[in-house]
């Protein structure tokens, strides 16, 4: 999935107690892309997901697996910013949550092309790509200006 000289995989953080605490103390912050890494936890709670972390020298990937099979990956820079997200499954995740403040831009961008098929939204500061078909939906979004040094956009998948 990713290349890197240092790679560590930990099956960690399905900390139910912490999760319950987070859910009890805070309403999930509805934001992810472009936000701080802390919002990953609100996504995790929202999706009731298991989470798995993969770390390269350039970024950390949080993979959230929902019980219904949908997988969301959130790519976090060393500075703690979510610079990319991807999703795959039979159903879409809550993209208002996953895309945060970019959701409206995504919806508007999706409507710019007539005819059905995959979509690519490439605008100032935002790239969104969606693909697949009923029962097999996938997509990704990233912030080109926030990619960590040396990270290629193709790695967000």
């Amino acid at each position, binding site marked *: 999935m990713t290349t890197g000289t240092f790679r560590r995989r930990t099956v960690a953080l399905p900390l139910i107690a912490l999760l319950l605490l987070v859910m009890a103390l805070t309403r999930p912050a509805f934001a992810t892309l472009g936000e701080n890494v802390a919002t990953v936890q609100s996504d995790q709670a929202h999706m009731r997901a298991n989470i798995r972390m993969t770390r390269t020298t350039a970024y950390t990937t949080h993979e959230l697996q929902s*019980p219904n099979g949908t997988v969301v990956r959130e790519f976090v820079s060393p500075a703690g910013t979510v610079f990319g997200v991807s999703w795959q499954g039979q159903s*879409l995740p809550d993209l208002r949550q996953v895309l945060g403040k970019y959701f409206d831009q995504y919806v508007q961008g999706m409507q710019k092309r007539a*005819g059905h*098929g995959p979509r690519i939204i490439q605008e100032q500061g935002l790239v969104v790509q969606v693909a697949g078909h*009923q029962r*097999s939906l996938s997509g990704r979004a990233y912030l080109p200006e926030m990619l960590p040094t040396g990270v290629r956009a193709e790695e967000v*998948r």
Partner: protein
Amino acid sequence: MSARHSRNLTAIATLVGLLVLAGCGGGSSSTPGNGLTATSATSVQNVQPLVVNSGPPGVVYVNGAFTSVTVCVPGSSSCQTIDNVLVDTGSMGLRIVSSALSLALPQQNDGSNSPIVECNQFIDGFTWGPLRMADVKMAGEQAKSVPIQVIGDPAFTTIPNACSSTGPSEDTVQTLGANGILGVGPFRQDCGLACSIGGSVNPGFYYSCPSASSCAQTTVTLAQQAQNPVWMFASDNNGVILELPTVPASGAPSVSGSLVFGIGTQANNGLGSAQVLALDANGNFTTVFNGQPHSGSFIDSGSNGLFFLDSATTGLPTCSGNNQFYCPASTQNLSATNQGTNGVNSTVSFSVANANTLLGNASDFVFSNLAGPNPGSFDWGLPFFLGRNVFTAIESQGTPAGTGPYFAY
């Protein structure tokens, strides 16, 4: 231009209506259920006209295959023929925009007598609306009491947040680009088993709506889901063939073809020398391009171009001002190999022309060489169907080449 096509469609719809009437009287000796139907002297008329054109009035659609579908109040002769319905091998289920439907079809309710309403997710948007029951007729074929989705029904205008949070709505003729979508993909239902299981494993497409503004996600049985109507036909129910002619490299204003029901059930729908690509559980296979395999590839008449990979892997530049399509300086001839999960390899040759040049011609709406990026996989859209007979076999339905799901061409 669209007015002319609309007149053609009206003529086709009239013809279809006559054929349906003829087919209804003919009866059939076929055996429902197993997909294999004995050819007999009373075989039903299984050819439904298709047209690829600019779509319904007010819509400018490129590379869309449209047909007409007749829906009836179940068990009655109260029917309506809907034209400009997009034929889609990438989805399952018949969906009709409410503004195109004047017939009052009965609502499907759940066990607590609440209406079942669906948030159907396409890749480019969702459709929201109730499931209503209809007898579905095309050519001489009939499927009785089929749950279909009525999109944008004024009885259910409050879209739940969990639905609207997935993307744009496609609940009007304008946003859908069609009066409806006929999903004849390789599965029986739009969702399948997942929607019949309770709890968090359920993808949550279906809702129970005790009132129009209070809907809650619910489980539905397989039979309650939106159905690919073809597998519910009394005969010729194991799949479809889309048959469309080639077009000149510069494009064409419109072409006519056929949607043929059944695979190997009649003299006109045999597989012949077609290569059969078995599919994975999601309806995908692998496409190899320049030696690199790309899983998650598929054939989809509902995608309006050949969408594959990206500029970095293909060397094809996207268009200036339109990054949805490729714009090579000169037409590129390429090839790729599709690999079914059954190990069958099939090499496909295809061309990619400059999309800005193609789309700059305002009188053409059918292009065999319109292509664009789709990072990571191949989406063989409508151009793939031009000049080919493409078979879509439905899951669990027997055919002479084995049980679906598969694509063959």
